[in-house]
């Protein structure tokens, strides 16, 4: 796999603007939910990011074909040099990369420089911006905390020298971290860390979300919030020629055959519609009003022929295969889980009876059944905090307890949860045992609730549901008012740290929704931060997973499989676990 990753590469041959895109080629795609805007320091939703990743250029990006995901230089001439202590990252930019034209540049061509990246990264520290990504950079850079503190609640002083983010010369950027971290680079590949031009931001200070100007392959042509977004090929985009060697995946060969030697992007215009309902999305795709689409849950059975013995073994239904529709699938780099509030007097705590209660609930929840019925077989059980495809994953680890309601009941009996005369269990101290599970209000939530009700009925524990919108429940959880709630976490970057931090004690009340505080886990996590990805760090991750299995602050859920369809004439498509879109690599040959 690594050998394959080394072979597949993209090369920027000549850095001269060369518009290759055919403006008559229009790619029509859809977002399943409304976007919020296009300022990379202000938006964090998946839908906005799919657009920003096509407008802005991060320093590094991912090889399109290599699996597992492999970082490659984007606007830099090579991957950065990293000091022996893992603290100093030095980047050398390619000269001759220009921003898309904008009135803020007063008619002059504006070259991308190291100062643009310094400014763009500092924006995530700016207290007046409230970047949703600030947790990735807070306290990371030498002198950063002091600069933020000096800003108070006002704007960051971007002109003040900052040791941690230093421009050495026009094309050289040096980042100095406060602690050893060999795994920082993937963070800088996120669309959120794409370069913006300071003069554009300052000229559009009141509405930066509507004025994205970057150096990427596309520029924003039209935006009707929540309805329609149109991108057009950036005429000043640097010449980027697709040059890759296919790996073993048959899709690679088709991609290389379609794109080898071609200048990117090929598609001149991308029309993005926001379609939230499943029927119009699906019918629009079948009717060729959309070129690429996911498969709505309701259409899975008709679109795919699913092997009943192995539901992950699927093929496209005959009527679609005949039309030449392409099917691509991949496990999402995400996890889903239900957490217990570890500070709650009923379900939280370290005592054996509380651990037994949490374990019993985990043992009685039928993960396989929910995968079969709710996910229609298109998911796998989650067994490790770090999902497959993310550095640090251990495929051999089995974190989900065996489904065994009888053993779960026996466990509760053993730890003093007796069944009272009303048929429901009491707590070991004789008080009534009742648990409230937070949930959303959708039809899908109601399906999940049926399984939870069945689980608790099996255990003879009273269950009630607290329904609410996500932000209401999140607020209630912050106030310690929830006992249990389900969540999902998608990879921001493909490193185990992004997942293991979800149970780090210092993140309690933030990303650690369970409020899990375990000194051993925290010690191991802190030690893991100082190690590069490899066997030594993986051992620490295994130990941390064992602690989580033993303490059961979470009930591991499942990991979903994404299926994507494209019409016959869409060439160059290969799903990437971290790039939200493949648009710049696509060609349309109708």
């Amino acid at each position: 796999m690594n050998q394959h990753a080394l072979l597949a590469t993209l090369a920027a041959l000549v850095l001269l603007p060369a518009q290759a895109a055919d403006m008559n080629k229009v790619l029509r795609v859809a977002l399943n939910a409304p976007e919020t805007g296009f300022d990379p320091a202000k938006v964090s939703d998946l839908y906005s990011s799919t657009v920003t990743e096509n407008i802005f250029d991060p320093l590094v990006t991912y090889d399109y074909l290599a699996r597992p995901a492999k970082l490659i230089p984007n606007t830099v001439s090579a991957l950065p040099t990293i000091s022996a202590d893992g603290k100093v990252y030095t980047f050398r930019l390619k000269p001759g990369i220009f921003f898309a034209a904008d009135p803020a540049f007063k008619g002059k061509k504006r070259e991308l420089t190291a100062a643009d990246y310094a400014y763009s990264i500092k924006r995530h520290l700016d207290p007046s911006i409230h970047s949703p990504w600030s947790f990735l950079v807070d306290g990371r850079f030498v002198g950063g905390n002091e600069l933020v503190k000096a800003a108070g609640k006002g704007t960051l002083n971007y002109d003040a020298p900052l040791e941690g983010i230093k421009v050495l010369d026009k094309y050289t950027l040096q980042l100095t971290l406060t602690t050893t971290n060999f795994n920082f680079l993937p963070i800088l590949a996120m669309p959120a860390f794409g370069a913006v031009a300071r003069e554009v931001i300052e000229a559009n200070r009141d509405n930066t979300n509507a004025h994205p100007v970057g150096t990427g392959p596309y520029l924003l042509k039209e935006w009707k919030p929540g309805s329609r977004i149109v991108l057009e090929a950036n005429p000043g985009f640097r010449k980027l020629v697709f040059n890759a060697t296919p790996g073993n995946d048959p899709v690679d060969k088709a991609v290389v055959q379609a794109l080898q030697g071609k200048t990117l992007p090929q598609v001149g215009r991308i029309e993005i519609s926001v379609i939230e309902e499943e029927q119009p999305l699906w019918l629009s795709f079948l009717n060729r009003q959309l070129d690429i689409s996911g498969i709505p849950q309701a259409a899975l059975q008709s679109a795919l022929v699913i092997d009943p013995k192995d539901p992950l073994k699927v093929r496209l239904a005959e009527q679609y295969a005949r039309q030449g529709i392409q099917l691509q699938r991949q496990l999402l780099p995400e996890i889903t889980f239900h957490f217990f509030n570890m500070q709650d007097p009923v379900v939280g705590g370290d005592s054996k009876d509380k651990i037994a209660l949490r374990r019993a609930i985990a043992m009685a929840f039928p993960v396989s059944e929910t995968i079969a019925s709710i996910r229609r077989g298109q998911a796998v059980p989650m067994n490790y905090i770090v999902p497959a495809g993310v550095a640090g994953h251990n495929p051999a680890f089995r974190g989900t307890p065996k489904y065994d309601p009888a053993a779960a009941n026996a466990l509760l009996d053993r730890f003093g949860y007796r069944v009272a005369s009303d048929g429901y269990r009491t707590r070991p101290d004789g008080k009534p045992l009742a648990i409230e599970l937070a949930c959303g209000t959708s039809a899908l939530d109601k399906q999940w609730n049926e399984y939870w009700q069945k689980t608790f009925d099996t255990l003879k524990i009273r269950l009630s549901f607290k329904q609410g919108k996500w932000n209401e429940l999140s607020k209630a959880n912050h106030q310690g008012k929830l006992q249990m709630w389900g969540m999902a976490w998608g990879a921001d970057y493909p490193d185990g740290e992004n997942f293991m931090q979800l149970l780090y004690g210092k993140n309690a009340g933030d990303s650690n929704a369970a409020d899990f505080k375990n000194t051993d886990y925290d010690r191991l996590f802190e030690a893991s931060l100082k190690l590069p990805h490899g066997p030594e760090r993986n051992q620490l991750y295994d130990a941390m997973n064992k602690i989580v299995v033993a303490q059961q602050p979470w009930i591991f859920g499942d990991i979903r499989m994404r299926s994507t369809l494209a019409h016959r004439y869409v060439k160059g498509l290969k799903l990437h676990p971290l790039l939200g879109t493949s648009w710049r690599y696509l060609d349309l040959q109708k």
Partner: protein
Amino acid sequence: MLAYIVRRVWQMVPTLFGVMLLLFVLFNWVGGDPSYILAGKNLSAEALAGIRQQLGLDLPLPQQFLIFVRQVLTLDFGTSWSTQQPVSALLHSRIGPSLLLTGSILLLGTVLAIGIAALVAYLRGSVTDRLVTLIATCAMSVSALVYIIAGQYWLAFKGGWFPIMGWSDSTLDNLLHYLPLPLLLGVIVGLAPDIRFYRSCFVEELSHDYVRTARAKGLSEPVIMLKHVLRNAMIPVVTSLMMSLPYLMMGAMLLETFFGIPGMGKEVVMAVERSDFPVIKAITIYIALATMLFNLLTDIVYKLIDPRVQLH
């Protein structure tokens, strides 16, 4: 008449204040905290506090309400909390498609419903009347969602007579291409209850003594229907129509969602889901204002239809 209008306009002030107060209390009670949405994955106490400060949610409630009052007086509701776009620009871009859709539905639906209702009222008790009443009753018992899903599937996808969905910047293109199917479905959804309501208005008028007198005088049935019955039956019809006019602004949420029409219905849903109070405030206030204005207009139209009506 002028004194009446001035008095009614003055009465709008306390009504509007009541609407503002109710909206403000409701939002702060059950509206949800937008800072948890805007914070993304960064849910630290500092991040949440910073966002609340930026949105002005950390201000004392009376001060927040005064800001609301100022926004209503200036009709400047600031920017959307979720997208940062000016609320006025958002609503401006949304109102056109909504009015085109709901206005067309109202116009076509009303003309058809009044025509059919007048006909079946005239043929009261006949097989046609019973058949139309039966069909209307059955049609009313089917959810609007079923019409939309079935219509989109059979007429657009299977039949290929319409695009599945879409909207253009060209009004002509929309009228010819994208509007017909949602218009047809919108009319079908509203037709049955309207026919039944208007029929009952006409039937009631037909049973009055003046109709018998007109027949006794030898007036022809068309003259009785068009000159006498229709005019008198127009009072409840106008009331129903005028009351529905303000809600044209709200758009047709289901139709807009299924047919990709960038109207107000979609905007309302998005604003509520995202706890986007500036947008919710603006839409509510505009609807309240429009409702009060159309109520006044309804009274004036009564007077025009029937000069015997006295406005006090």
